[in-house]
């Protein structure tokens, strides 16, 4: 069908045995159209990614004197809850005792805190399963319990039971002084 049309319009002066040039034009036209469509589509897709002001969210400084031993403060950081927990000696001991217990996402307690600051456990407070906020004091390990699908974390925020695949995430943070921490 298309060959017929090509034959009908071709200039008889030129050899009609030149399909490669015509193929080239077809392919080039299709490629240009596809490339054009893709480059137009991209802005429409990318506009859904975080906007500049969302990305520019500043880091947070937090005064640790507000948190008594055995207490936890939840602050909002990048739209998510952040747990700042002042762990009791019993909680630290329980976490260190289980360092070699079989775990889904094995980690040492020492790797989840800053050296010499074992009482300060700073975690992103969203369950690694589907993003709910776990509550402290539930579950069999005395750590966090997620009300949505029953994931249980220990006193180092490590996943011990339930559908969550990973330990509660650690944000980037640094101690500015003994009583001040900067997160982000």
């Amino acid at each position: 069908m298309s060959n017929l049309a090509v034959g009908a319009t071709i200039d008889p002066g030129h050899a009609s045995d030149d399909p490669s040039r015509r193929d080239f034009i077809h392919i080039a036209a299709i490629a240009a159209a596809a490339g054009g469509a893709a480059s137009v589509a991209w802005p429409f897709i990318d506009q859904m990614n975080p906007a500049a002001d969302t990305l520019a969210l500043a880091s947070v400084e937090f005064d640790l004197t507000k948190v008594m031993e055995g207490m936890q403060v939840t602050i909002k950081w990048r739209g998510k809850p952040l747990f700042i927990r002042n762990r009791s000696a019993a909680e630290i001991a329980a976490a260190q005792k289980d360092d070699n217990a079989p775990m889904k996402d094995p980690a040492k307690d020492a790797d989840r805190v800053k050296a010499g600051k074992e009482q300060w456990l700073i975690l992103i407070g969203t369950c690694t399963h589907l993003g709910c906020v776990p509550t402290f004091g539930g579950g069999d390990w005395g750590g966090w319990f997620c009300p949505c699908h029953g994931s249980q974390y220990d006193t180092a925020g490590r996943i011990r039971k339930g559908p969550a695949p990973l330990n509660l995430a650690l944000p980037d943070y640094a101690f500015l002084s003994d009583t001040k921490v900067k997160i982000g």
Partner: protein
Amino acid sequence: MSGHSTYTPKTGLTRWLDSRLPILRLAHDSFVDYPTPRNLNYFWTFGGILSLCLGVQIITGIVLAMNYTANAALAFNSVEHIMRDVNYGWLIRYAHANGASMFFIAVYVHMLRGLYYGSYKAPREVLWLLGCVIYLLMMATGFLGYVLPWGQMSFWGATVITNLFSALPLVGPSITTWLWGGFAVDNPTLNRFFSLHYLLPFVIAGVVVLHVWALHVVGQNNPTGVEPKSKADVLPFTPYATVKDGFAMSLFMIMFAVFVFYLPNSLGHADNYIPANPIVTPAHIVPEWYFLPFYAILRAVPDKLMGVLAMFGAIACFFALPWLDTSKVRSMRYRPTARLYFWLFVLSACVLGLCGARLPDDQVIPGLKTFTLIDSDPNSFVWLSRIAALYYFAYFLLITPILGLVEKTSPVPETIASPALNAKKA
């Protein structure tokens, strides 16, 4: 469509229009003269009821959008403004919120009717697939709409559902960030959800047109599953189907009205009257009732990715059904064994719905202490949902393909009209 058009324009104006845009002819051929099997029962009225539901949702939704504000700081209060200050706002919002539940009640009856009478079997596969697409779009629309009041259930429902995509390896986290437009569900998420919630019903309406088109190409199935063979087997759509559909719609609207006027919050959750709080998850979050069976399947699997795949797989089963069923007999009226498994399937879906509404570790029989099987007490809703989910998948993937090859069916009538004629003789 079926055969020649019998439409004859009667006035000068309709003759003029018919030769320019034969839209009245299309309507006449599709909804007046269209032949319908003479033995359709009330389960065949749900197609009409569903179009009514879509119409109600679109009209109430457009009106709500005139009074709603899609902004994280204002959304919750704008819904309360609709409830308290806007004239008849309470009525329109309750009709829209309960309308979603009515829509799903109707679609589940419609789907189970298709399952029972084999309406997905050749030559109706495309018709069935389009229906599955509509169901998927309905679920997406229902979910997006539930987020808009920006209450606690809205927020945490949105968080859990969007986090499902984080289970995908490699691309998961980028996809969730892209869906959110940030690092958590927040104002950008609410804005885009509103935009899409407004769009999708019109997409549904478009696919409904294709669904009805496909229906009118292959014709309606009927309770015998036997194709109409002669004029004796069919009746014109008007008045027979229109009046019957109209009567069923009236009954359905009475039930709808009972919910809107007497039980407007019975299908919702009290927690959604608490404004969204990104740092506190409610103690017990559950989706709307129409998602509960799939939510139970998600929770039944202890692995994140596998759980998400099982949940989507449960929906994918419906798409694959036309090619899973090996039976030569269409209607379960003549498949006594299949009927038994069908009702067990309905039971398993209801049990899953029940499990989805409970906490996984809650006891099914209160007070009965047992042991730990793998990770939980067998007397817990997580194990009950595992058993029900296993049956759910077995029904599609094992029972349906195998049963069609081995079952003993009862005799199928020659024509739709013949059982009635034989009964008269006897």
